[in-house]
């Protein structure tokens, strides 16, 4: 598809060699774009926090290229006080952090993990809210581990990301072709 698009432009250049408005050289680097994307499909510098809940909550914080957010600072807010931190702490070298929410304060616990301007906030339901999240009865869900990826590029497979990226790139190429033809 890429080679075909470039070939099409080259034909136009041959037809109108004097037309300075056609900047076909700009299309050449595009041939490299899909290769670069394949080499590193998910390496945007976002962050991705997953957690497991049971009696305690275990977090794993990673940049979305899979690198752990070692030493990232964790701030936890209880459901009834979103202003003052209930607890603060630091992730270990693997980006892990474990804490025991107060079971007498059910609701949505907010956990912010951040390091050097990158980070994310996850909302972890505890108690009654957790039962809803797990889709089970309260007594069961309270101790059933719930694995839930949150934030970052979670939810998309590398192939989906590749297709999304390629569609944006193709949109840009299409814009360029549209304006070239209007000259």
């Amino acid at each position: 598809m890429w080679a075909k698009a470039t070939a099409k432009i080259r034909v136009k250049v041959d037809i109108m060699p004097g037309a300075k408005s056609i900047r076909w050289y700009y299309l050449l680097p595009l041939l490299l774009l899909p290769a670069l994307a394949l080499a590193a499909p998910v390496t945007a510098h976002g962050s991705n926090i997953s957690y497991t809940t049971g009696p305690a909550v275990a977090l794993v914080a990673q940049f979305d290229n899979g690198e752990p957010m070692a030493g990232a600072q964790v701030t936890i807010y209880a459901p009834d006080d979103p202003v003052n931190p209930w607890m603060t702490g630091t992730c270990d070298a693997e980006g892990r952090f474990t804490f025991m929410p107060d079971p007498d304060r059910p609701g949505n616990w907010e956990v912010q993990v951040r390091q050097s301007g990158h980070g994310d906030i996850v909302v972890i339901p505890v108690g009654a809210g957790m039962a809803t999240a797990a889709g089970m009865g309260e007594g069961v869900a309270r101790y059933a581990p719930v694995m839930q990826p949150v934030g970052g590029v979670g939810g998309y497979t590398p192939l989906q990301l590749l297709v999304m990226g390629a569609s944006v790139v193709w949109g840009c190429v299409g814009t360029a072709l549209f304006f070239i033809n209007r000259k």
Partner: protein
Amino acid sequence: MHLPDGILPVTVCAAGYATGGALTWYALRKINRQANPRARVPQAALLTAAFFVASWIHIPVPPTSVHLILNGLLGVLLGYYAVPAILIGLFFQAVMFQHGGLTTLGVNATMMGLPALLAYVLFRLRFLFGRESRAGTGLAGFLGGAGGLALAVLIFYGLLVTTIPATLDIRMERAAITALALAHIPVVLLEGVFTALVVLFLQRVRPDLLDGASGWTPPVPVAAPDPSLPGIRGADEPHA
């Protein structure tokens, strides 16, 4: 180096939208005053694609890893068009990959767009050496590519260091921010060299492209299309 949602205070995000909006307005006004505002839209569109993809390319700089930005390259090659190009690239990075964020779109656009205009100014230094000088063009390209990113890193550093929330361990967070900013030094040099190579290549094959971006008025090859006839193909071509 994109600032995500939830890191900056709301006031900073709002101020970022104000400065980003003003910057975009200024750039669009400058573009609209050119003889043919559409002439460079194809380049801008293709470099938007390059900017969009560049953040996927990671460079490991222990203990962290950083990615390409290319805002200096866009400034050098596009001039004022770099601002809308960066804004559109950032928007798609935010909505598609949660890279950056919609609340911080204005902040990020200012952080990268303003230095892109600086890169454009730095690249004009090549006229001091004469338009044909390859050494002068290469040096100015390096300065533009590296200077554009360096200023963006400084803005990034300044914004983060002055807005660390009191609930965090400020000393530790400041050290982490400083480490990340310093990790961008190799990227600054790399993008400078890359920009220099690109402008030297263009100087050899299509020097008119560099002139157009640098405010040098190139001869207008065809009359500007009539804007009232946008859908009619070839409306500006002479009749046989």
